[in-house]
């Protein structure tokens, strides 16, 4: 499983924050969700809607519908390097 198989779509968010929103591929959603949950240091949980915390020092919010928001990575290259480390 490689990151480009796991991630179905990457959206650059609109706004000054320049975060990334990732949508997990349906066929790898379960396995990828497990990896994300294992790597996520949870700071806050909002019911069954979302988990907010950090993955490898990067601010991350993981949603029940398989979306992942990553903050502060700055560039697409940094995002890809991060995903490579996370998913392979």
């Amino acid at each position, binding site marked *: 499983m490689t990151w480009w198989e796991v991630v179905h779509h990457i959206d650059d*968010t*609109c*706004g*000054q*924050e320049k*975060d990334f*929103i990732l949508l997990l591929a349906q066929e790898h959603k379960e396995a990828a969700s497990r990896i994300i949950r294992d790597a996520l240091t949870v700071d*806050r949980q*909002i*019911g069954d*809607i*979302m988990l*907010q915390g950090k993955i490898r020092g990067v601010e991350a*919010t993981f*949603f*029940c*519908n398989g*979306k992942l*928001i990553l*903050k502060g990575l700055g560039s697409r290259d940094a995002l890809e390097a991060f995903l490579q480390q996370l998913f392979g």
Partner: protein
Amino acid sequence: MDIARVRADFPILSRSINGRPLAYLDNAATTQKPESVLKAVDGFYRTSNANIHRGVHTLAEEATKIYEEAHEKTAVFIGARSWREIVFVRNTTEALNLAAHSVTAKYLNPGDEILLTRMDHHSNLIPWLLAAEIRGVKTVMAGVKPDGTLDVDDFRSKLGPNVKVAAFSHVSNVTGWISPVADLIRWTHEAGALAVVDGAQAVPHLNVDVAALDADFYAFSGHKMLAPMGIGVLYGKADHLRHMPPFLGGGDMLETLSVKGNACSLCLKELPWKFEAGTANVGGAVGLVAAMDYLNAVGWEAIIAHERALTRLALECLGRMKHVRVYGPEDPDARVGCVPFTVEGFSPNETATALDAEGIAIRSGFHCAQPLHQSLGLPSSARMSFYFYNTQDEVRRALEVLDRLR
């Protein structure tokens, strides 16, 4: 208004998202389409599809009649004096680009000024900035108040002798604020300038009368008022349009093109065709007519009252949430159903994604209004926007999720 009956007309509203019923609260971005619009567009392509004008066959004549009648019905819908003042374009952005290009080319000279506002959508800023640069014209920017509404005193004070055009929104696409558009137009005229109005968020929600407003130009999109994407309108006073050069050149916009040696001479068609080069979006125009018929059948009084009730509910409940900050005027009657907000501890993108997880569609980001966000000191915002097919239950569902975000 029988809301259940209205909602039954919109097939998409019965969809589920993430296992929950869809609550579509992103109407300032685009609206959903009723069955009558879908059927009208489908029917056109099934029975009457042909390219318009200069076709002698029956289908071409039918399509031409349908398309020309769509101009007439649009003129009636917005109170234009003549159907020739209605130019069909793709959307508000194209309408404002047309206005900016052609008005600047005809009426502006180096040293002149264009007055813009920090409240406006990029669609009513960038075309003017581009046109001003090409023409060597200056732009001046009116500011906003702390609540994000236009500082009308600043606007008025900047209507100096060099201002030849003022371009502004009737309704803000971020705060939903209904500007005193008639006053803005009157002051603009008193300063000897032309008034160009972005009506993208007004025409879907208010009963607009362009002739009564005395706007020189007024732009709006079909897709924000139940019609398909790809059809929009630029209204312009005939006297202005007649003297302005076209924005696009091509087929169906000229009477004759004659070439003698290297010399070419063009004779443009009468209004509005000289501004409608190329194959028209006849299917879109058919959808626009069906959309206007639908809105007229529901009735403006009912639409406005229903949207105000939804806005009031949202503002009252959000106002009680200490972790939520709402932007725009406090008075629900001063805005259409459009409510921007931020939630403490969550980015607008997180907020919107959290709502999406619960089947609720809202928008996050700049909403194509970066100068307004800069003025408000916001990196971005979340925005709920309602239409007459939304229910109080849908708004409450969104509010319940927001209440949990703390």
